[in-house]
Structures are given as C-alpha cells and as structure tokens.
C-alpha cells in the first residue's frame, strides 16, 4: 500500500470514510491510498476536525440512540449488514469488487467470508446476542416498561473508540455493531490493510437508518498518529483495540485512566486430533479435510487459525495424517486459492520448509509437503513441542502419545492461545476442555466451526457486549 496526498479532484478514488458532521467541501487535504489497483480516499483530519466529529456523534447518541429500543437497533444493523454482504446490492458489489485488491485475499476467499458473515449479521442472531449477554432485560432502564423490581442494569458507554486491525475482514464491522448495540457513539479507525468494509457498513447504515448512522464515524489515519488518537482516547469511555502487541501496548500507555480498554491482542489457535478420528482412512481423511479448511480460511491470518495440529498416537499415524492434510490443502487451494503474499511472508515460508527438509535430510523424523510456489505447506515433525507458524497456510502436524499432554506444551504461551479444535476425542472432551481452559485456551471447538465463531462467543474470554458496559446496582 502506498499513500499519496493531493487535491481531491486529481483522483477517482473511492471514499472509504463516514464522518457525520464533517463538511467535506471544507476539507483541504485528502489522503489517497492505492491497494493493488484500488484507490481509496480519506480526508486528512486535524485534532479539531476529529473533535467536532466526535461532538457530533455524541450529540446524535444523546438525541437518538440513548432511548432507542434494542429491536430498532438490531433491525437497522441487520439491514445495513445485509446490504454489505449482498452480492446483488450496490454496496455489496463494491465490497466484492474491491476487497480482493485491498486485502490480498483471493476473490473466492472474500466471497466465502462475506457469505459467512451474512449468517452472523442477521436480526435474529443480533437479538440472540443481546439476550445472551443481558438476560432478564438487564440492559433496559430501571424505569422501563418491563415488569418487576430490578436491582441491576447495564449501561453502555457514551463514546467508544475502536482501533481495527486488517487481517480478517468483517471483524471491524462486528465490533461496530457490538458498540452500537450497547448504544455507544462509535468511532472506528480502520486499518490501512483493510480500510473499506467498515466504511461500507456505515454508508449502508446511513441508507437504512440515517439518525443511527449519525452516531457512527469511520475513517482511516496512519496508526499511531498521536494528535488524533489522543484526541479520540481522551473522549472515550471505552477503547477497543485490535492488533499486534506494540499497538496494544501503545494504546495502554496513552489511554486515560478512566477509560476501559478492551484488548484483542495477538492470539493464535491449535488443533488436536484424537485416536477416535483415526480409526479408519475415511474418518481421518474427513478430519484432515476439516483441518485443512480451518488452516486455509483467512489464509491462516485469523486469531482462530490453527498453527499446530497434534495427532494422537505414534509417528506413523501423525505422518499419515500430515499426508492427508496435504492432499486436502491441495484440494482447498483449487477452490479457495491462497491470496497474495509479500516477500517477507514468502521468505518465512521458504525458511520453515528448508529447516524441516534439512532436519529430515539430517536423519530427524520430519517431512515437508508443499504446494506450488508457497501456496501451502504441511510440515510433519516428530518433535512434539509447540511452534508458531509463519502463516499463509503453513501448518505443522506433530505426533503426541496422548492429547492430555498438549495443555502442558501450550502452557508457556498462556494468554496467546485462543481456540483449540478437537476431533475424535469422544467422552474425553469435557476433561480435555477443562485442562485446555486451565492452560489459557478460551474456546474449544471443532475444525469445521473453527473459523466461524458464533456471534455470542466469549471473544478472547470476555462477553462481547458485557465487556463494553458498566453495571449499575440499585439497592433498595
């Protein structure tokens, strides 16, 4: 991606922002970013301009969103999201046309991700999320029309500032929806790697519920811009940050003490295949196919993407499973091609392959299975210890005598390991889940569901709406 600045009329770039209250006629300077052919445009804001946008959305929240019934919010959000994911809609068409260039993901990947998001972003799912998070109308005012005495209620922030990362499209939109569901005026700073989808969502929201969209601002600036970020943070009750450790650390050090920081820092995931999944060739092939999909979706860049798969049994079983995963990876590559990778990423994949291959040449029990170029890599390695992947579809398959040994192997990475996909563990599931939970894992699932956590999941261990609110006790 490259940035260049110039007068607005010199470009035919797409406006990837939604800034209520900003007089775009008065914007003097625009930033245009080029993403493999797609041009996106953002106004270059100063702190005063951002401050006036924040004032505008806060006022809109007080006037419109504060008393808005949940039903009205979920309906508008679902309608707006529906436009974004609908391939026949004008906004949905833009998403599908530009996201491959912007993110580097292949077209089929972008389509798959948008199709799956459609399932999460419907009205029923959003209502379910609110119900799950705030049972018994605890999100309603004490003086509301729900019957019965109430002693506790949740109150949303007046203003929430979100900083998005770009690795998985849709995460930003989900974050915005959560924020508006708890009736917060919301500012989303998009990532330079994916500055589009959140802006499209805001635009769609403006088309279905203009007053609600007036409570939402979305734009991009270079991450770390102290003037803008300090302005936004100083106003925020809640700061939601997605990103790598330096980003999270930087926000933590600059946030006002009164702000709550919701962190979605670096996380990775693992897979575990039990003996029951290996009883015959067909069963293990099915598990291997599911594992290959879990690795391939988001080109392994999601926090939900597995880095290592442990296979229960001896080395032969793990090696055979690695071969089956390799066959499945090749098949996935045909229907869901891996996206573009940079020089650094390709070099990292080559390095991982070389290391494993020369381990094998040197007599270690290891093997490399690989696709054309760097498209996919399966490394079988008899050394059981955890190794983080260099991503972009590079998975290690390792034997382990008993899956019960895995929690001890991941314990040193406590706080980093998010999801564990378990296959073929039968009645040992609950026991293994407890051990994994103890080792810091926050989600235990299967390979098939692994890339698609349900809307109400406890994302990185917290309630997706509860982590945004304050609880207020009413003592009689």
């Amino acid at each position, binding site marked *: 991606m490259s940035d260049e600045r110039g007068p607005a009329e010199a470009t035919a770039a797409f406006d990837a922002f939604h800034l209520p209250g900003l007089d775009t006629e008065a914007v003097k300077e625009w930033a245009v970013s080029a993403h493999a052919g797609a041009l996106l445009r953002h106004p270059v804001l100063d702190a005063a301009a951002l401050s006036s946008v924040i004032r505008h959305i806060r006022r809109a929240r007080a006037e419109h969103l504060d008393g808005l019934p949940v039903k009205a919010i979920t309906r508008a959000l679902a309608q707006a999201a529906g436009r974004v994911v609908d391939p026949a809609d004008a906004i949905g068409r833009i998403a599908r046309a530009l996201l491959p260039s912007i993110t580097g993901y292949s077209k089929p990947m972008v389509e798959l991700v948008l199709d799956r998001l459609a399932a999460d972003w419907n009205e029923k799912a959003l209502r379910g999320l609110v119900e799950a998070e705030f049972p018994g109308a605890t999100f309603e005012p004490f003086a509301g029309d729900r019957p019965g005495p109430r002693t506790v209620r949740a109150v949303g922030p007046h203003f929430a500032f979100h900083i998005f990362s770009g690795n998985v499209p849709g995460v930003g939109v989900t974050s915005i929806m959560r924020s508006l569901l708890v009736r917060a005026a919301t500012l989303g700073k998009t990532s330079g*790697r994916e500055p589009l989808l959140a802006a499209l969502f805001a635009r769609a929201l403006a088309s279905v519920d203009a007053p609600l969209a007036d409570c939402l601002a979305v734009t991009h600036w270079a991450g770390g811009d102290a003037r803008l970020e300090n302005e936004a943070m100083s106003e925020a009750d809640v700061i939601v940050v997605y990103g790598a450790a330096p980003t999270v650390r930087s926000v933590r050090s600059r946030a006002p003490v009164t702000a709550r920081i919701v962190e979605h820092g670096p996380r990775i995931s693992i897979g575990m295949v039990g003996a029951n999944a290996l009883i015959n060739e067909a069963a293990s092939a099915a598990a291997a196919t599911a594992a290959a999909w879990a690795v391939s979706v988001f080109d392994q860049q999601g926090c939900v993407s597995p880095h290592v798969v442990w296979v229960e049994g001896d080395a032969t079983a793990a090696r055979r499973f690695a071969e089956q995963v390799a066959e499945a990876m090749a098949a996935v590559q045909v229907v869901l091609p891996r996206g573009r990778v*940079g020089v650094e990423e*390709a*070099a990292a994949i080559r390095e991982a392959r070389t290391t494993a291959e020369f381990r094998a040449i040197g007599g270690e029990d290891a093997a490399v299975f690989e696709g054309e170029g760097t498209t996919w890599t399966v490394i079988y390695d008899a050394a059981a210890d955890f190794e983080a992947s260099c991503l972009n579809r590079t998975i290690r398959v390792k034997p382990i005598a008993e899956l019960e040994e895995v929690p001890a192997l991941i314990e040193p990475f406590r706080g*980093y390991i998010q999801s564990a996909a378990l296959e073929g563990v039968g009645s040992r599931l609950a026991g293994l889940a407890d051990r994994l939970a103890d080792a810091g894992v926050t989600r235990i699932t299967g390979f098939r569901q692994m890339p698609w956590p349900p809307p109400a999941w406890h994302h990185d261990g917290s309630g997706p709406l509860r982590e945004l609110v304050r609880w207020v006790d009413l003592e009689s």
Partner: protein
Amino acid sequence: MTGTIEIPHSIRDALRAVFGRPIGSPLDDSAFDRLALAIFAWQFEHNTPYAAYCSRRGRTPAAVTHWTQIPAVPTAAFREAALIAGDPAAAAAVFRTSGTTGGPERRGTHYIGDTSLYHESLLPNFAAMLLPDGAAPVMISLVPRPAEVPDSSLSHMVETVIARFGAPASTWVASVVSGIDDARLNRALHEACERDEAVCLLGTSFAFIHWLDVLRATGRRYALPPGSRIMDTGGFKGRSREVDADAMREEYAFRLGIDTVHGVNEYGMTEMCSQFYDSTLRDHAAGLKRSRHKVIPPWVRTRLVDADTLEPVTQGERGLLQHFDLANAGSVCAIQTEDVGEAIEGGFRVIGRAAGAQPRGCSMAMDDLLEALAGNRP
C-alpha cells in the same frame, strides 16, 4: 567419510585463475558454466546433505545442463546441516552466524575445508574495492580479534586483510567483553594524524553507530589524513536501531573527515566465502561517476528471484538475492538469501532483509512468542 576431501587440482587451478582476474571483468558465461558444473558434480559426490537436497529435486549432475539449474540452498539450511564436502570435524575453519534469536544451536554454520583458497578469493576483492589506489593504510579494526571469536568469518577476514595489507601501526580496538576501547581507538587515530598516515577503519555498522554516539556525546571530531577510508558491514539488517546508510556516511564525513566516496559498505554473509563491496572508492580511483552499487566479483553470479516462485524476476523488479559463488567450492556454491535487492548499473543494491519480518494481522509474531517463552521459562 573421514578427513577433509581435497578439491581436485583441476578445479583449484581454474579457481585460482578466476580469482586472479581483475574485478569488473567477469568470466564469460560458458567459462563460468563449465567451472560451475564441474564444482557441482564434485560437491554432489562429496557433500552428502547437499546431494540429498538436489536429488529430492531431481537435479543431479546428470540432469543439470546449466549452472542456473543447480539448486540454491537457502541460508537457513546452514543451521540444520553440515554443508561441507567431507567430514565437518576436519574442517580448517568453522564460521557461525551471530544468530540473535533461537539460541546457539540455531546458528548457521559454514565449514571451510581450505582456508588458503578462501584467502585467495577475499584478498584481491578487498584490494580492488578498498585499496584501488594501492594504499597501505593503518588498519584499525572495531571487530574483535579472531582469538576471541574464532567462529566469526568477519574477524577472520579482517585479520587476513590486515596481515596482508595493513601498515605496521595497524591495530585492534574492540573486544567482545568490553566493546570498543575508546581510549585506544582515540590514541591510534591521533598517532595516525601526527604521522599523517591514512587509516582504514573496519567494523560493523552497529559498532560504528555506537562509537559515533560516543563522539557525539563528547563533542569529538577528527580530521583524519587524506586517503583515510572506512569499511562498514551490515547495517541494512534491522537491529536495535535502524541504520540509515546515507546518514551514517554523512556522520563519517562530519566526525571523521572521511568523505562519502571513502565510505564503503561491505555485504557479506557467513555462508559465503565471497564479499560484495560498494563501488564508490574503486569508481573514484578510476575517475568514474556512477551511483553507489555492490560490485559482483568475477567468480560470482548474482540473480534476483521472486520470493514466491524462486524464478528470476523480470528486469527492473526487486527480488531476493541468489548468489552463485565459485569460491564456495568446498561447501555449496548456490546460496538463496533472504535479502531483498534490486539490480542497478554495475551490480546490485541491497534493500533489506526479508526474514524476521512480522506476519501481518493480529496473529502472533515470532517476537511475541519468544518474549512469552523468555518470560515463562523457569
């Protein structure tokens, strides 16, 4: 296999002839190809892990018809395998990469069977690029002595160069334990100034950064005698501080009185016997005005390849540097680096290092992982 396996005389003699060629007059492709294929056939016979690597790709001497088909070994392989013809235990020298991550067992190792052949390649290259005017300056090394770091190829190279070209007052001013001995360095520079003898400072860019910090903090400047020069190495590999090579050379001019033409960056690696030097000093001596580039010695071919496919990039594009170094006859000639470069007139330019970059997104970077491990290890 026991003992080192000697490179056959026919190859050895042919190599000596190439090492004797003036820098800037490369072998023609057919002569390079003949020698490269002969060396490959010999390496395939005696370098067991490399032969296995090539056989897995179907690239045996019988199948390979041009040097460009000879499999390049990624530098990472030197961490895993003893890539030498013969018994590594019998190597004349063992060089290891500095390897800041992953612990000592993860350091790349280059076994040198025959140091005399190595010296015969490095000396004429150094002379042509650092001493094109035939100077014999006082050499001051900011690299620790080989006695202290016997596995450093850089120390070995500097010692070889000082022994051959250095004026009698040449000296070593740094050690692993105490770093740069500033008093000693200061004295050596003052003495050179008093005697009006040109100096040649040798060290890593990293060492020079720290020394420049000291000079800045103490407000010291030198006006080193005319003809003084500096060879720094590395610098593009991001360490604790990014090094801006141009800014460094401005500092050399301001603090030392060594103009930018006399600032020569060396690009070398433990896994390769040959080095690449900036063109500036040699071009200056020849009265040429060309932009700074790394010069490829006659016994090396350097190609730029696509990181994803490892196929040569289209002309003008950036790519990973892949070197074919005939001076590596004792180990592996074809080396795939993780350094990004671009071709420019006369040679190439190193842009940066691809390895060690953080994967994008919120997934975990290797640095974080190592941090996690360090913090949790008992």
